[in-house]
């Protein structure tokens, strides 16, 4: 018996971003100037309310080595928990994009971005999510971009009731999503190392 055909298309398959991802998405880093404006260098803009923070870390492979050809994208709400998107109710400050893109340093593997700490966003079923930044990670050797979330160590109460963190059955693995708050030159800096594989592998999401 042959039923009727469903006429959905299928999503195009992902392929690795490869080692030269910088050419397309961060050409300055590949070693040349081409665009008047590279995208994704300023997440929050000058007018954003809230606490100015830095988030930084490494992406670490199975051997414990920093990966040096990674591109990361961040997507976050503003301090009021509003995404800069027409379908999300609420307003964001002029110049607030909520999106950024950074690469790992070719020598050290360090990445980092400056932004404002996001507020809580309403999740499913009326349960507020703890403040978080969504991360998308691509590189040579990564076949499908990896999604994870950066939560904040000083948000213990919110984290404890976060519906996404609580989906993770293993409490020990939840810790891989919590960026540790520190300070440098009087400014809050959160440390978030991503472990692609091995002990304490970061939790990645199928979103």
């Amino acid at each position, binding site marked *: 018996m042959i039923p009727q055909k469903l006429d959905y298309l*299928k*999503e*195009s398959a992902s392929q690795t971003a490869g080692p030269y991802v910088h050419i397309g998405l961060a050409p300055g880093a590949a070693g040349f100037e081409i665009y008047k404006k590279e995208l994704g260098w300023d997440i929050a803009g000058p007018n954003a309310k809230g606490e100015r923070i830095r988030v930084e870390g490494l992406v670490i492979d199975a051997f414990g080595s920093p*990966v040096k050809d990674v591109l990361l994208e961040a997507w976050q709400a503003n301090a009021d928990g509003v995404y800069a998107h*027409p*379908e999300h*109710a609420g307003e964001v400050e002029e110049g607030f994009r909520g999106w950024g893109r950074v690469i790992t340093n070719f020598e050290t593997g360090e990445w980092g971005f400056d932004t404002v700490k996001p507020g809580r966003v309403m999740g499913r079923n009326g349960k507020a999510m703890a403040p978080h930044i969504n991360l998308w990670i691509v590189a040579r050797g990564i076949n499908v*971009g990896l999604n994870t979330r950066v939560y904040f160590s000083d948000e213990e109460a919110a984290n404890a009731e976060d519906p996404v963190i609580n989906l993770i059955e293993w409490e020990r693995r939840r810790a891989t999503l919590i960026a540790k708050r520190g300070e440098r030159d009087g400014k809050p800096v959160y440390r978030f190392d991503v472990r692609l594989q091995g002990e304490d592998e970061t939790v990645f999401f199928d979103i």
Partner: protein
Amino acid sequence: MASQGEFYQRDRRRHPPALAPDYKTSTSRSPRYSLISLQNSASELTGPVFGHNDIDPIDSDLLHNYAKAGESAIGQRMLLHGRVLDENARPIPNTLVEIWQANAGGRYRHKKDTYLAPIDPNFGGCGRTLTDDEGRYVFHTIKPGPYPWRNWVNDWRPAHIHVSVFGAGFAQRLITQCYFEGDPLIPICPIVQTIPDPQAIEQLTAAMDLNASAPLDMLAYKFDIVLRGRRSTVFANRLEGN
């Protein structure tokens, strides 16, 4: 703007697995634990929005966007066009499409590329554009050359263009590669072959499109990109929930 529902689940059987040992680099960069599946919240349903202030019209013309005045890139002149659609076959308008590629000799303009094929002084190798109201995009470029890479001792990448697309929500974010019909390297490329489904590989293979070609100028190839579809919602509820 009409409120839309959640994205259809990503069909992971159609995408490459994280670990594909024939593509050696994936061995040490592939998570071993299962992904944790999330139902969409606002964090996944929303995503960055781009406008014409973000880019310049010249950005989509790789023949000229890095060339000296009056000159252009060397190679087979090519018009690459297509549509960005979702799985419901609906066009995705106003979405950012970014591409990057090697030059006609298979060499990238990148400080880490040391292949002995020469750099083309008139070719940068990247472009970007926004889709129009019907999801269409067009690039003018040259056909990239195949190039060798260190995996097995004698592996060659088929001619390809890297493609990055956003869609309307962060859950649609995708990077893929566009191949070209008739390339004998496609079936033996360890990166292409990370994709388990032959139909999914065909879907990444652009067809020569004589009708769309610019006579005496550029041969066209057509490459449609499909992003995840969305459920339609009966109620016009905002994403915030209530």
